[in-house]
């Protein structure tokens, strides 16, 4: 790569040189470089496990590097502490929100650096401070609202406000768009651009290449712990970035055109494999969260549900899977699923990739092999005991077939990267004998290579005549995979369109509730 120091006349905001960071025998960073100019939006891209987050944690003082130099605004800060980093204006916005749900926005923002009047928290002052900050940055959130009542997008704004409140001038955002709808992403871009125009420096960790092109000015690409490329955004293409990330050509979901109606469906009127009628679900508090939802999916069809998160998609999927009480009818190949419990629905031919990988889809302390039979443990028994031999053989086959890394069946799932954890889930759910697949956010937080792989598996299932219900907050994903597209808003299906009629432009208004259709 080109030597970055030659090209920079003014002092860069961040300069990391030859950073090595290992955890025991695992080398997360092996000579990583990063140089970010003051007042720019810089994208740090790379596959999961490439060492991006580690490098940023080194920058934020959470880890001390084994070797290498770190400079912030020209000052040598090698091996500083988190407190030093905060004092120097380096703030990190984490992928997983670190907010207290029962406190208000203002309280969360000032938490840890509270404004007090005597021993009492000065609420009014806190709210005033938050409001001022909101106005200055365009990050508008009601200061007195409870965090648990906020949407994901709003919660993220609170995270950013919190960081800014502590005086951050260099902002690191770790995968900020993973949980946002397209309009929310656009709003975030507006905010980030405003911050940049005020002179703040922004580093964005992401996998989404269209976003990189959209927002950044400079791109640094990491692979396997090393920095492999640094380029100005102007003049590069998603393909070029992807090539640098994985070291080979990949088919990108965002530009893979919809592949057309598959052969199976063209044969004519086939009875639906999954049929949902008048399905309603209430929240624990008794509010309706899914209202009278109806749809059916034919064999060999992918029905994609688009929509901003929190509009009933989660509840819809969980109701079909049997994890949530519901009224209405759900039939799989003509068989009524309502009286069946989770296990029997699975046995009846329902596969389910849940959206929450860490809470639902995996038992993180269980081994890869054990996780590969989770939900089907009753099929891997010999008398009362688990048949460890068969479980292990099953695991070896799937690890090879789905390229799960590291290929060690005894490792706890916790020790794997997000992408490989998701591969465990996909491998498990696609390897069972199923007719209908529920895929909720199947590629969330997963790197480009794994996304490509998972999409291929979903298409494969479709081509084998299975019915697939896909829920994704990523509109590009829904459009790339679905044969028909539905939009959920406020617990209802507000639009159900053939793929040919669906586009970000036609769907957008439905997603924000601006338009309603039958």
């Amino acid at each position, binding site marked *: 790569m080109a030597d970055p120091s030659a090209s920079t006349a003014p002092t860069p905001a961040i300069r990391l040189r030859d950073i090595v960071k290992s955890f025991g025998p695992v080398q*997360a960073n092996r000579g990583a470089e990063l140089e970010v100019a003051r007042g720019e939006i810089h994208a740090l891209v790379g596959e999961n496990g490439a060492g991006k987050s580690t490098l940023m944690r080194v920058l934020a003082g959470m880890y001390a590097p084994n070797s290498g130099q770190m400079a912030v605004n020209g000052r040598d800060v090698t091996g500083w502490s988190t407190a030093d980093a905060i004092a120097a204006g380096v703030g990190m916005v984490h992928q997983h929100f670190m907010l207290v749900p029962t406190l208000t926005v203002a309280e969360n923002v000032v938490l840890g650096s509270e404004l007090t009047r005597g021993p009492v928290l000065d609420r009014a002052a806190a709210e005033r401070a938050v409001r001022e900050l909101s106005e200055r940055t365009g990050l508008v959130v009601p200061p007195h609202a409870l965090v648990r009542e906020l949407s994901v997008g709003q919660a993220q704004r609170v995270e950013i406000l919190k960081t800014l409140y502590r005086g951050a001038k260099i902002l690191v955002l770790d995968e900020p768009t993973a949980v946002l709808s397209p309009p929310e992403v656009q709003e975030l871009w507006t905010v980030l651009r405003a911050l940049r125009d005020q002179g703040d420096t922004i580093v964005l960790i992401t996998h989404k290449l269209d976003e990189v092109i959209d927002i950044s000015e400079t791109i640094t690409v990491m692979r396997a712990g090393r920095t492999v490329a640094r380029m100005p955004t102007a003049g590069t293409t998603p393909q070029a970035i992807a090539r640098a990330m994985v070291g080979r050509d990949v088919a990108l979901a965002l530009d893979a055109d919809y592949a057309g109606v598959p052969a199976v469906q063209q044969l004519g009127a086939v009875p639906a494999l999954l049929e949902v009628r008048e399905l309603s679900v209430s929240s624990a508090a008794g509010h309706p969260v899914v209202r009278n939802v109806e749809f059916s999916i034919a064999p060999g069809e992918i029905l994609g549900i688009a929509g901003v998160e929190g509009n009933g998609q989660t509840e819809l999927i969980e109701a079909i899977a049997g994890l949530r009480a519901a009224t209405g009818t759900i039939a799989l190949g003509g068989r009524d699923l309502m009286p069946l419990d*989770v296990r029997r629905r699975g046995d009846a031919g329902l596969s389910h990739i849940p959206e929450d990988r860490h809470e639902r889809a995996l038992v993180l302390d269980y081994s890869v092999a054990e996780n590969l039979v989770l939900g089907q*443990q009753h099929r891997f028994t010999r008398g009362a005991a688990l048949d460890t031999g068969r479980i292990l053989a099953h695991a070896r086959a799937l690890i090879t077939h789905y390229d799960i890394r590291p290929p060690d069946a005894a490792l706890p799932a*916790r*020790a794997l*990267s997000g992408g*490989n954890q998701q591969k465990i889930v996909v491998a498990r759910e696609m390897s069972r004998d199923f007719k209908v697949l529920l895929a909720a956010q199947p590629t969330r937080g997963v790197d480009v290579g794994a996304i490509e792989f998972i999409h291929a598996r979903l298409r494969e299932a479709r081509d084998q005549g299975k019915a697939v219900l896909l829920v994704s907050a990523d509109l590009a994903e829904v459009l790339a995979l679905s044969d028909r597209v539905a939009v959920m808003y406020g617990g209802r299906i507000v639009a159900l369109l053939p793929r040919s009629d669906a586009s970000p432009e036609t769907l957008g208004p439905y997603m924000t509730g601006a338009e309603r259709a039958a």
Partner: protein
Amino acid sequence: MSTTDPTIARVGGDTPTPAAASAVSDRASRRASIEEAVLPPLVALLLAAVVGDVLILSFGQSPGAVYRLLVDGTWGNAYGFGQVLYKATTLVFTGLAVALGLRAGLFNIGAESQLAAGGFCAAIVGLLLPVGIPSLLCLPIYILAAALGGGVVGAVPGVLKARFGAHEVIVTIMLNFIVLALLNYLTSTRLHVPDTLHTAEIGSGVLPRVSDVVPSFQGSAANATILLALLAMIALWWFLFRTRRGFELRAVGLQPHAAEYAGVHVGSVTWRALSISGAIAGIGGLNYVLGYKHYYEEGFATGAGFLGIAVALVGRSHPIGIGLAALLFATLSQGGLAVNALVPKQMVDVLQAVVILAVATSVPEVRRLLRGARRSAER
């Protein structure tokens, strides 16, 4: 640092690169996990020992002399060792009972009343059984009675939790009071031998003492229930780590949402786990009733339930750890008697408390320490 830590992903997100992580040898990770399992309790024990030293000095005694007396009175002679075994036997049962609950994510505070109920039911059955039935025939009946007694007491909080969401900690604590009061009432109003707090002696099927086989154990209460305890340890290990039900139970304890997703009925696991937990504690009652005194006596279970919690925590809810922890606490308890001439009984109570506190807090504490150590080692 030559070892690896499986918790990296927790702190590092997507840090380990697949290629690098696959280079981790099995042996290194196993050694790391053994060190992680052994070192914290060792630190806790040594810490307790040092606190004990200071306490002993504050009583004007020599720590060396007191510890020597403690060891002489426990592992130093057959009788003392027998008493340690006897006490450990009860603690293994209550420890396993608590551990089973913990594995399912439940905190069973009621082992004491479950133990008492098990012993009580065994004693009642013993009074009803005609004299002269061969022991081998009686034993299954006794085990069943004790398991049933403890199991019913355990099932109550289980069902209340599964059906109504009542917190098992509160219910088991309340049940301790209710059950013990009920048993004492029944004993002292209907079943007791005049001028005593115990029932009449059981006629048939009492278990042989260790001293029947090894005469040098003469006088010690250690009896064949030890074998039942060993059996219970093996059975629980097999159940937890080798069976489907155990797999599902642990999943409920680790991640209830994932267990639910895997088709496990969390509610039924809850009440089953607490019932079995109670049954295990109940069988522990045989140690006193069938192996030692041959009658139910009020208060025989006193303290064994709470010590069982300590045993389960110190033993990390693993049957082998529980066996070792039970021996430790039994040694402290018997050793407390042996050194009673030099230091007050309360000193041993304090020692016990220090061990419990040190080990219980060492779990997250040591984790943090490990992380700090790793960081400073690499600096």
